[in-house]
């Protein structure tokens, strides 16, 4: 954990989130706090529960247990008020068919309740260097361009919390740099907090000052990238990621071999330590 003096107020507080689907418990007691101006990476291998956690933090999925407060509003009841200060974009989401980029941004500027939507759209187009795409239809854009438009959409109202799910997954390095620069500038100038999920650990180390690792639905580490790497006796976040992915695979192999059918987190493997616990690993 990072040591803090007078901590800025939280923009997101999630307490003891639990979510269970038919296939088992996918989020298991997650606690997550993001403070004003903080840039946080929510990381973990596939199936760790990142997207479900993110969707619960946005009020799009109801937790089975636990609570979420965004900008002081408890979700889901306070979702409309909370979302006035939240932006969301995901690298995997397409733009709506048959809408031009400017029309799409205008739609969202109106949905956010901006008094001067046209000016906000033009500013966002300029800020992310996508003015030349303004009249293009969503389906005509490359995946990188779509991502840029999505992030421009999410930051139209200069949100206090910007949530990005895999934002740079499809971007060329130069575009990724432009996105990163734009995001860092947004955070620095307006104190916007950032919550990002990504599989690109290098990107995360450049963008985030704090990372929260999930594995099997639980928070397994929370601190600066350096602190987390040290905790797992790894050189960097990529090492941590690979370590957790291996632990997950061992777990799955053990479950598949019939050594217990538990699918929840921590079924014999302590992913918090530098080396995976070997108990029962013979089945893997």
């Amino acid at each position: 954990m990072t040591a803090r003096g007078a901590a800025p107020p939280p923009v997101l507080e999630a307490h003891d989130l639990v979510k269970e689907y038919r296939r088992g418990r996918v989020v298991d007691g997650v606690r997550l706090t993001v403070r004003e101006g903080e840039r946080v990476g929510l990381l973990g291998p596939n199936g760790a529960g990142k997207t479900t956690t993110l969707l619960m933090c946005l009020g799009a999925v109801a937790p089975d247990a636990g609570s979420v407060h965004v900008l002081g509003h408890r979700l889901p009841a306070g979702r409309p008020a909370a979302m006035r200060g939240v932006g969301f974009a995901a690298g995997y989401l397409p733009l709506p068919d048959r809408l031009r980029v400017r029309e799409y941004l205008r739609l969202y500027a109106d949905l956010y309740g901006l008094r001067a939507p046209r000016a906000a759209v033009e500013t966002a187009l300029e800020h992310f260097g996508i003015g030349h795409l303004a009249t293009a239809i969503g389906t005509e854009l490359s995946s990188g361009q779509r991502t840029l438009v999505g992030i421009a959409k999410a930051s139209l109202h200069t949100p206090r919390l910007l949530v990005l799910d895999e934002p740079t997954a499809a971007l060329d390095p130069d575009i990724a740099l432009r996105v990163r620069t734009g995001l860092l500038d947004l955070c620095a100038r307006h104190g916007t907090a950032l919550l990002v999920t990504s599989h690109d650990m290098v990107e995360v180390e450049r963008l985030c000052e704090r990372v929260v690792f999930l594995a099997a639905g639980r928070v397994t580490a929370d601190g600066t990238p350096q602190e987390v790497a040290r905790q797992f006796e790894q050189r960097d976040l990529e090492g941590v990621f690979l370590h957790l992915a291996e632990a997950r695979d061992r777990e799955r192999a053990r479950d598949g071999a019939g050594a217990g059918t538990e699918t929840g987190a921590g079924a014999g493997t302590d992913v918090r330590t530098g080396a995976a616990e070997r108990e029962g690993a013979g089945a893997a």
Partner: protein
Amino acid sequence: MSAVEASDLRSPAAASAYRVRAVARRHWLVLRRSPHRIFDVLVWPVVDTLLYGSIGLFAAKATGGGTQTGTGTGTELGTGTAFAVFLLSGTVLWHLVHQTQISLATGFLEETWSRNVIGLLTTPLRGWEYLAGVGLFALVRTALSTLAVATLAFSAYAFDVTSLGLGLIPVAALLLLCGWAVALAVVGLVLRYGSGAEALVWGGLSVVMPLSGVFYPVSTLPGALQPVAQALPTTHVFAAGRALAGGGPTPWRELAVATLGTVTLLLLALFFLGRMVASFRRRGLVTRYS
């Protein structure tokens, strides 16, 4: 970028109004750029009018009712002519409920097809604002469709729908509400069951059509089905419409029963939709559209 302060945001009431308008505008833009949707809005309604108008005219001629199908023109209605009038008035009124239902339901489907559901859920947009926006769009689309049907009925078969008189206003309003109620239920099913329920958008009302006595009194239905038909609010609305088309006075009693039934149907549909939205969030079904 400049920081967005409270002063940069509209007042809550104004923001709501603009959100409703933004949703309606979004769907209008999509309609304008979707030539294939012209079939739903104009082509099928025109085809129906041609079909039922010509059948009615043929029946009128076969029974010696002449070619004049218009009401309120001073022409006394023969059996065949009355049949033609019922067919044409039924066609116009049916398209009111059908277009409203299909416009609202496909409006929501558009969000699922374009995977825009998560985007909408992560804005301050409230459920009622979204429904009002799509409802507004549905109203415009229904107006276009009904105008096409009414114009063809008048120009090709001399049937003037306005000759039904002021009683047409409550009849049309009730049909719009029935269309919305069915659409809300269908949207609820699509939320809960996904694309498997999409067929109901186009086919759901087809089940209601024969039971509602769109073109005939429900007394002509098999006896076992008549109580079912009487329980449908649409049956009473169409009965009122038929009474007006037959040149009778406004059937207030029938309209009162229809209003009671329509309001009940609408409340049930809203309740059902609310339950389906809760289930949608609880089951994490939004990930279908991510």
